[in-house]
């Protein structure tokens, strides 16, 4: 069926989202959503700062990192000015909306409704003194790394 790829189809993926910036969160979300669109089973495991994307109080406030990112083509000294990250985030969100890429909370809901499962990392939850109540309702559970591998059995694992 594919023109360029192998005829062997990917059936299952587990995607780890470990970064809490906008550019850290979206690739994993897009890949998980894209997997479901192709009929591929998808699990997303949120760990460390990636958990911001599923935290009720934080998920609508994910921002682009404007400091220490050479691809922004902005000197770090400029990037650290107040409001710079919010400005860059606004510009990027506008462009993404044109492509129908939803804001994080809507995207998380869509991916969940598409049948992907969302998991939070036990170690991070303990480290930051969080509970399941800190997460949006789409999150299945808080699981440890062993359980993560169990869930991922027979599939590909992608770290972002």
């Amino acid at each position, binding site marked *: *069926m594919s023109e360029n790829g192998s005829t062997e189809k990917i059936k299952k993926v587990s995607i780890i989202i470990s970064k809490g910036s906008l550019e850290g969160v979206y690739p994993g979300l*897009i890949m998980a*959503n*894209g997997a*479901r*669109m*192709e*009929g591929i089973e998808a699990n997303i495991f949120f760990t460390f700062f990636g958990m911001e994307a599923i935290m009720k109080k934080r998920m609508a406030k994910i921002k682009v990192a404007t400091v220490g990112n050479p691809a922004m083509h902005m000197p770090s000294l400029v990037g650290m000015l107040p409001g710079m990250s919010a400005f860059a985030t606004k510009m990027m969100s506008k462009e993404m909306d044109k*492509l*129908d*890429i*939803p804001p994080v909370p*809507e995207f998380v*809901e*869509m991916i969940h*409704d*598409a*049948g992907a499962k969302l998991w939070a990392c036990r170690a991070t939850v303990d480290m930051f003194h969080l509970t399941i109540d800190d997460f949006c309702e789409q999150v299945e559970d808080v699981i440890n790394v062993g359980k993560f591998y169990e869930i991922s059995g027979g599939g590909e694992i992608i770290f972002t």
Partner: protein
Amino acid sequence: MATETIAGVSVERNEEGFLVNPDDWTEEIAKEIAKELDINELTDLHWKVINFMRESFAEKGQIPTIRGIKNSGGVPTKDLYSLFPNGPAKKAAMIAGLGKPQGCI
């Protein structure tokens, strides 16, 4: 690319089965293509999706995304996935006589 007759109409389809010309489409063709995709009966909700996609395409020249079908077409994502299992955007587009969706969303 191959020419074949579906529901009494001669149409061109690409290698993946999408209609080459959306204007060839009829409701009867939709029913036949749906059967090929193991969707044996098109319910009112299926038609809601198909009609929205065709109208949106005619208006904007673009195949609507799953988000567009949800926000503008009024069909929740969960329903879309159960109406067109294992690849809703592609399957719905194929049944609606449109091309293969090219976006990432």
